[in-house]
């Protein structure tokens, strides 16, 4: 999940330095963690000074923030949303429910380990993390982009069979996606 890039061209280094300063977050709040986002965006712990704003459609967003637990019903919609975003895109797992099930570890219908279904870039531990922790993790993500290690979006195109097998096992049958991942991978040479 995220290969180290050993040799980057000068253009890629400049591009990383400029595009790390403006990341847009999708305002899609799945679980209990959504309550920690308004304090992060407003005047006390201002998030906009790092360039992180909020966007309302997945086509315009870079970061998908999975705040909290995901029941199987929501996981299907999250997978469809993730496939509609345009690369490069980063998934941030928020709270301990995405790490190992969290408070709902023995429930029959919440998923336990998020990076089986979509590739995850960073995790934030806590139940719920405070805004200071959220901003620290966004800074860590910005540093990771700067060094060129934030490449988990490529993993989805390369190992699509692994993710699809896990998704189909949990859902009732193969889900109908509207984006053809393999064709996109061939077209954009990922």
């Amino acid at each position, binding site marked *: 999940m995220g290969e180290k890039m050993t040799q980057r061209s000068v253009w890629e280094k400049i*591009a990383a330095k*400029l*595009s790390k*300063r*403006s*990341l847009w977050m999708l305002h899609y709040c799945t679980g209990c963690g959504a309550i920690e986002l308004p304090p992060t965006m*407003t*005047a*006390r712990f*201002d998030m*906009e*000074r*790092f*360039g992180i704003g909020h*966007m*309302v*459609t997945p*086509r*315009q967003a*870079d970061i998908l923030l999975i705040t909290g637990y995901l029941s199987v019903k929501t996981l299907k919609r999250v997978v469809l949303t993730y496939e*509609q*975003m*345009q*690369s*490069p895109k980063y998934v941030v797992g928020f709270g301990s429910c995405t790490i190992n099930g969290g408070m709902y570890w023995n429930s029959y219908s919440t998923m336990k380990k998020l990076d089986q279904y979509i590739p995850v870039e960073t995790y934030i531990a806590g139940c719920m993390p405070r805004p200071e922790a959220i901003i620290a993790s966004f800074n860590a993500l910005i540093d990771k982009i700067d060094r060129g290690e934030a490449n988990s979006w490529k993993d989805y195109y390369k190992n699509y069979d692994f993710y699809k097998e896990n998704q189909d096992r949990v859902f009732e049958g193969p889900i109908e996606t509207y*984006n053809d991942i393999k064709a*996109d991978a061939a077209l*954009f040479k*990922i």
Partner: protein
Amino acid sequence: MNVVLWIIFLPIIAFVIGTFLLGYSRKFTARVERRYGPPIQQVFYDIFKLMNKKTNISHGWMHDVAVLMLLGGTVLTLYFIPVPGFSYFAQYGDMLVIMYILLIPSLGMALGVGETANPNGSIGIARALTMLAAYDVPFVLTFIGMAMLNNTTSMYDLMVIQQAGGVATWGIVTNPLLAVAALIALHGMLGKKPFEVVVAPHEIATGPMVEMGGKYLGIMFIQHAIAEVVEMTIYINLFLGGALNWFEYILKLFVLWTVMLGVGMVFGRFRTDDAVRFMWKIPLPLAIIGVLLIIF
């Protein structure tokens, strides 16, 4: 040769001024809300990031052409407006040409967004064309008023007259009613609150921009930056005396932008029918009275 250089570099200069104005507006908004804001060059980072996206989702060739029509229409309008140092085409065109060309971007966007079959986009386009009918009527009347007052339809001549006569011949002083009506209509044209019904981020998921991502959105942002400069330049040339050197021009842009930003910050957002009703209730009678005063 000079003309060719201006043709190449004028959109770039307008783009740079536009991005700094937009970045300034984000910083101003943040400071009023008592927080630090993004740096002033933030819009430039946004556009760079959008153009740097690796995958694209296209909805057909009309969708691709529409974005280019959007940018092309705005750049074409830029050539026909006299800016300091370059009025080659402005001497041949006049206000009627500008009024026509101003409609091309909206129509292009309407055709392209209709291709995507997203209901949010269709609602956004319906609102955009409704608002076009709302703010264009008082704006066109003010054009006609200023043309009748000075016996010319060429914007270049208007600018020369106002620059030659000094402050006493500025449009604001000779005909304040028309100037106020045009200011309110300009507020609607730029899409500032309370007339932000087209791009309503949390109501209709940013309206026409809902299916645009990556490079399409980057081009739309560039168009947004240039369009702000174009529309404010029209107002400056009609009512605020035009400009013959760049320092005066940028200063007037800055002052006008701050006034409109300050007014827009204290409002929420109108509904579409409220916005249309407001535009036809307050600026339109002012413009009509102003035109009648000129005739009689």
